[in-house]
């Protein structure tokens, strides 16, 4: 038995620490030599930075973890609760992956032992709420993923303490509304994912707080209106996904100042027309949206009111997604025509 990394320290907490040490060293050797891992054991690997432990059924969740653990994944179990003191003894933990369990509740103290945590993945659990003070000492947390839980509402106070937050994923929950001031304490937020919820309206101050939001995901909700002020606090926004909503109305100044936009997705909504000035407010008409735009699957009424849009389309047509799915629903004479063709012949 050889140790590949003489600097790796391994101190275990718990009664059977000697046996655990041998067990873990054995696992380390097995994985380090590239032998097919035993599915009944957690995957263990080690580097100069610390140990990484990854457990899925049929492996058992370990009772104790190496003190230098920096990465821990416990996924696909049917856990409804985490064991008390689950993270005791791993003060250097940086990443915690708990996806695809059935967690219903989290103890308010569960993250207290891990102040260095950078990533917390809680995708696909059964959380309906978060306990107050959960992130009290989580000033290092950059990425929080709550995708696929059962959150019906949110309280801004649940997220207190997340000073360094960069990526917040609240997609695939049951959110019908959002509280005011949700993001006001997240100056470094880069990505906000609220996709696939049931949001009908958004608080007008939703985007106040972050200084450099890059990506905003609102696809798959029930939004009917895009208001004037929503995007105003984020002129450097680069990716905006509004597809698969019920948008029938977009305010003329909704995109004012978005000069860095690389992708705009308005597909699969209820847009029949757009106000004059909407597109010209998207920075220079000649500026390339680097990645493109999609306005397909809307019931466009191809009349004079779209003159603005036609000009913009022709100038940006090589960045247009799904040209064949972007068609006129009216007037009768133009029903079924490709919008781009109508724009080019205008």
């Amino acid at each position, binding site marked *: 038995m050889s140790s590949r990394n003489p600097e790796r320290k391994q101190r275990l907490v718990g009664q059977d620490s000697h046996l655990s040490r041998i067990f873990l060293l054995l696992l380390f050797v097995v994985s380090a030599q590239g032998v097919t891992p035993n599915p009944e054991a957690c995957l263990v*690997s080690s580097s100069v930075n610390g140990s*990484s432990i990854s457990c*899925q059924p049929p492996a058992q969740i370990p009772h104790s973890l190496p003190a230098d653990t920096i990465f821990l994944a416990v*996924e696909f179990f049917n856990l409804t609760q985490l064991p008390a003191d689950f993270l005791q003894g791993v003060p250097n933990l940086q*990443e915690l992956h708990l996806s695809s369990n059935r967690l219903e509740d989290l103890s308010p103290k569960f993250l207290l032992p891990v102040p260095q945590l950078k*990533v917390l993945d809680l995708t*696909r659990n059964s959380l309906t709420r978060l306990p107050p003070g959960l992130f009290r000492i989580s000033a290092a947390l950059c*990425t929080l993923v709550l995708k696929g839980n059962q959150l019906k509402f949110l309280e801004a106070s649940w997220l207190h303490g997340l000073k360094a937050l960069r990526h917040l994923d609240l997609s695939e929950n049951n959110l019908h509304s959002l509280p005011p001031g949700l993001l006001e304490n997240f100056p470094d937020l880069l990505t906000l994912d609220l996709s696939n919820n049931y949001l009908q309206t958004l608080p007008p101050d939703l985007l106040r707080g972050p200084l450099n939001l890059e990506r905003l995901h609102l696809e798959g909700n029930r939004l009917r209106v895009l208001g004037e002020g929503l995007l105003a606090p984020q002129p450097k926004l680069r990716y905006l996904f509004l597809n698969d909503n019920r948008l029938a109305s977009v305010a003329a100044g909704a995109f004012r100042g978005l000069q860095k936009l690389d992708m705009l*997705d308005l597909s699969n909504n209820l847009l029949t027309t757009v106000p004059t000035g909407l597109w010209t407010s998207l920075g220079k008409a000649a500026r390339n949206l680097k990645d493109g735009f999609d306005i397909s699957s809307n019931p466009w009424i191809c009349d004079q009111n779209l003159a603005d849009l036609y000009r913009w389309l022709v100038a940006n047509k090589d960045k247009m997604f799904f040209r064949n799915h972007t068609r006129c629903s009216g007037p009768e004479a133009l029903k079924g025509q490709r919008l781009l063709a109508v724009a080019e012949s205008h």
Partner: protein
Amino acid sequence: MADAEAGKKIFIQKCAQCHTVEKGGKHKTGPNLWGLFGRKTGQAPGFSYTEANKNKGIIWGEQTLMEYLENPKKYIPGTKMIFAGLKKKSEREDLIEYLKQATSS
């Protein structure tokens, strides 16, 4: 039939936050994907992979990507990639078609 245009949109929406595809593109949270097809797992130069990814030992191609992208954490237990997967077969096909084109010359 796989639609690379649809695949490109899926990539921008669900992958581009962490990955680039173009030759010489930078590593982000995840590796640049140029040269992916025909390459063994965990081999993009200059990216710090998990042991789990490096040791998976398969070659990336249509079949392996179809399986992987449905449930990445099942295919590579121990991966640090946070992505629940694409359930719809057609979406995976579209994305793979796009990747085929975008990650090679």
